[in-house]
C-alpha cells in the first residue's frame, strides 16, 4: 500500500525527465560508483592482455589454431552470445525501470537477466562436456588450452555476476534500500561480462 | 533470517552477515570438493599401500587427467572450508563463562590442519605432472600425498577436543552451543584419531586405505562439517535475535 504510493510519487518526476529525454541524455552521469568502474576497467585491461597473448600464440601456429577452431560448435557459440546479449538487454532495461521508480518491473527484468545467465552456464557446460567427450581436452593443444582457460575464467565472471545480480535483487526487494547506484553498479559489471564474451566469441569461434 | 530495518547498517549486523557468508561457503564449496573427491580415480576403492612402484606409476599414467582435475580442485577450493571453522572460533569467543583461550587454541590448530591439507594435493599433482618419471619417485610422491592427506589428524582431534571442552565449560545460563554439540565434537575427535595409524601400517583397517583410516576418518569429518553447518546456522540466528539484529 505504502509501496504503491511511493512508486506513483516517484514515477511522476521520472516520466517528466524521460519525456524531455534529449536533455536528460546530455546530462553527465557516471553509472554505478567509481569503485565498480575501477573493477571493470581493470578487468578489461587484464582480459585485454589475455586476448593479446592469445593472438601472439595464434600467430605462431595459425594453421593449428584454425584447424582446432573448426572443431568448435558455432551454433552453440552463437546461441550463447544471443543468450548473453538478451540478458544484457534485460539488465539495461531493469536499470531504466529502477530509475523510473517501477521496482516490480525492475525486479522482473533482473530475474530475466539472471535466468539468461544461468542458461549461459548450462549451455557452456553442455558444450564443454561434448568437447571432452569428443576427446578435445585442456591438454590437446594450445588452442584448446586457451579455449578452456578463457571460457573458464569468463564462466567465473558469469557466476560472480549472478551473485551480484542476487545482491541487486535483494536491494530491489528491500523498500528501504533501492539505491540506484547499487543497481547501476551491478548492471555495469554484468555488461562487462557480456562485453568480454563478445571478444572471446570473435577470437575463439569466428576469426580465421 | 529477517534483519530488522533499524539494525540494517549497524556493525553488529555486519558481524552476523559476514559470519553467514563464511558459513554458506561451506555447502557451496563442500559440493565442489565432493565432486573432486568422487572424481579421483584412486578413492573407490582407496589405493592400497601395497601396490608396487610400477603399479603406482601405471595408475598415474592411466588416469592423469582425472587425477589432475580432482587435485587441482582440492588445491583451489580446499581452503574454502576454513571460513566455517573460523565461524566456530568467533562463536567460541562469545562464550561468557570462560576466557577465550580455547578459541585461540582452536584457531591455531585449524591453521595447522589446513596447512597440511593444502600440502597433500601438491604431491599428487607433482606425481601426475610427469607420470613417466622413475616409478620409485612416483611411489614416493604418492606415499607423501597419501600420508599427509590421511595421517595428520592431530589438528582436527585437538580442534574437536577444544570445542568439546569449551562447550562443557560454557555452563552459564545462556550457552552458545547446546551440550550435545560438545559430545558430538569429542565423538568426532575419537573417530578421527585412529587414522594416525596410516603413518605406520601398510595393511589392515588403519592403513591409509583401511576402513577406519579412510572411510571412518573422512566420513566423520564430512559429517561434522554438515552437522556444524546446521548447528551454526541456528547459533547465528539466536545471536542475531539476542543482539536485536533480527527477528
Amino acid at each position, binding site marked *: 500500500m505504502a509501496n504503491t504510493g511511493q512508486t506513483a510519487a516517484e514515477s511522476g518526476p521520472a516520466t517528466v525527465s524521460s519525456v524531455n529525454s534529449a536533455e536528460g541524455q546530455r546530462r553527465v552521469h557516471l553509472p554505478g*560508483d*567509481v*569503485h*565498480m568502474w*575501477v*573493477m571493470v576497467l*581493470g*578487468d578489461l585491461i*587484464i582480459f585485454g592482455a*589475455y586476448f593479446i*597473448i592469445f593472438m*601472439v600464440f595464434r600467430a605462431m601456429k595459425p594453421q593449428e589454431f584454425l584447424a582446432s577452431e573448426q572443431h568448435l560448435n558455432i551454433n552453440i557459440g552463437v546461441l550463447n552470445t544471443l543468450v548473453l546479449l538478451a540478458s544484457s538487454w534485460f539488465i539495461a532495461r531493469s536499470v531504466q525501470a529502477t530509475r523510473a521508480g517501477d521496482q516490480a518491473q525492475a525486479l522482473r527484468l533482473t530475474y530475466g537477466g539472471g535466468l539468461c545467465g544461468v542458461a549461459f552456464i548450462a549451455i557452456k557446460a553442455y558444450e564443454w562436456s561434448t568437447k571432452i567427450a569428443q576427446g578435445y581436452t*585442456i591438454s590437446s593443444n*594450445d588452442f584448446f*588450452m586457451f579455449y578452456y*582457460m578463457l571460457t573458464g*575464467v569468463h564462466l567465473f565472471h558469469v557466476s*560472480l555476476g549472478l551473485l551480484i545480480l542476487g545482491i541487486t535483487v535483494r536491494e530491489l526487494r528491500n523498500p528501504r534500500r533501492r539505491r540506484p547506484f547499487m543497481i547501476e553498479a551491478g548492471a555495469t559489471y554484468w555488461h562487462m561480462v557480456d562485453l568480454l564474451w563478445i571478444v572471446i566469441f570473435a577470437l575463439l569461434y569466428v576469426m580465421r | 533470517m529477517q534483519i530488522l530495518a533499524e539494525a540494517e*547498517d549497524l*556493525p*553488529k549486523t*555486519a*558481524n*552476523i*552477515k*559476514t*559470519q553467514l557468508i*563464511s558459513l554458506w*561457503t561451506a555447502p557451496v564449496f563442500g559440493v565442489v570438493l565432493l565432486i573432486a573427491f568422487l572424481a579421483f580415480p584412486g578413492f573407490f576403492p582407496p589405493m592400497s599401500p601395497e601396490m608396487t612402484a610400477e603399479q603406482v606409476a601405471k595408475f598415474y599414467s592411466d588416469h592423469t587427467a582425472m587425477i*589432475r582435475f580432482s*587435485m587441482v580442485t*582440492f*588445491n*583451489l*577450493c*580446499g*581452503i*574454502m572450508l*576454513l*571460513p566455517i571453522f*573460523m*565461524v566456530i*572460533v568467533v562463536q567460541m569467543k562469545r562464550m*561468557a*563463562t570462560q576466557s577465550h583461550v580455547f578459541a585461540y587454541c582452536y*584457531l591455531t590448530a585449524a591453521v595447522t590442519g*589446513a*596447512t597440511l591439507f*593444502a*600440502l597433500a594435493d*601438491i*604431491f599428487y*599433482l*607433482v606425481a*601426475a*605432472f*610427469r607420470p613417466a*618419471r622413475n616409478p620409485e*619417485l612416483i611411489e614416493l610422491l604418492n606415499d607423501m600425498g597419501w600420508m599427509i592427506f590421511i595421517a595428520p589428524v592431530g589438528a582436527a582431534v585437538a580442534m574437536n577436543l577444544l570445542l568439546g571442552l569449551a562447550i562443557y565449560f560454557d555452563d*552459564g545460563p545462556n550457552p552458545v552451543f547446546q551440550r550435545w554439540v560438545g559430545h558430538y565434537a569429542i565423538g568426532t575427535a575419537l573417530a578421527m584419531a585412529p587414522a594416525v595409524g596410516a603413518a605406520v601400517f601398510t595393511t589392515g583397517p588403519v592403513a591409509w586405505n583401511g576402513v577406519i583410516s579412510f572411510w571412518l576418518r573422512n566420513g566423520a569429518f564430512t559429517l561434522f562439517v554438515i552437522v556444524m553447518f546446521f548447528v551454526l546456522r541456528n547459533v547465528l540466528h539466536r545471536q542475531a535475535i539476542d543482539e536485536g539484529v533480527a527477528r
Partner: protein
Amino acid sequence: MSSTVSTDSSPTAGTVDRARVPRAGKRDVWLVFWIVPAFYTAFGVIFFALARVMPPPRPDVTVDQMVHFFHAHALTIKIGFGVLVLIVGGAGISNGIVVYHMKRMTVGSVMAYIYLGSMSVGALPGCLLVAFSFLTAVYRPGRDPQILAMLYDLGLLSYVGSLGCFSTAYFAFAVAILYDKNKIFPKWLAYVNIWQIVTEILTVAIFVSKAGPFAWNGANSFWLGTAIFGVWLVCVIVFLKKANERQPADEPPLD
C-alpha cells in the same frame, strides 16, 4: 561467578582503564608497517636475483638441464633461501598488520580470522616448500638426477601453484572491505582482490601445461599473475599507510 565478573568489567571498568593507561601512540603500528615493504623488497631480491625462482626456469627441459640449473645456481640458492628462511617471519608480519586493520573494521572478526588463517596456510606451500626443495637439491650435488628433477618440479609447482589458500584470503579481504563502514580501505581494493582470485584460477593450468603461455613460466600463468600481484601489493602497502595515517592516535587498542 565468573560470568558476573565478566559483565562487571565490561563497560565502565574498561573506560577507566583506557583513560589511565598512557597510549603508545601509533609508533608500534608504524614500525610494523615499514617492515612490510622492507620484507617484500628482500623477498623480491631473493626470488629474482638469488634463487632464480622468478622468473621460473623452464618446465620443458631435460633432467640434465635441471641438474645443470641446480649446479649453476647452487651458491645463490643457498644464500638466497638461507636468508629467506631467516626472514620469512616478515610474511607473518605483513599479514598481521592487514589482520590488525581488518579487525578495526565494522564487520566483526570472522573475516580477519579467515585472512589470518589462510595466509598462514599459504606460507608453507606458497613460499617455504620451494625453499626447502631447492635447498635439499643443492645440499648434496651428487644425488641421482631423477631425484633432483623431482625436487625441481615440486619446488616450482608448489611455489607457482598454491592457489586455494590465497584465494580464500583474498575472498575474506574483499568481503570485509565491502561491508566495512569505517572506510579503512577503499571499496575498489576489494575488487582488486577479485582480480587476484582470477589470476589464481588462471594458474591452475600449470599442472597440465609444460610449455607455452599456461606453463609455470608462461605469459598468462606467471607474468600476468605476477604483474597483478604487484599491483595488489602496491595498493595494499599504499592503503595500509593511509589507514595508519588516518587512524586516530587515541584509538583504544583492539580487543
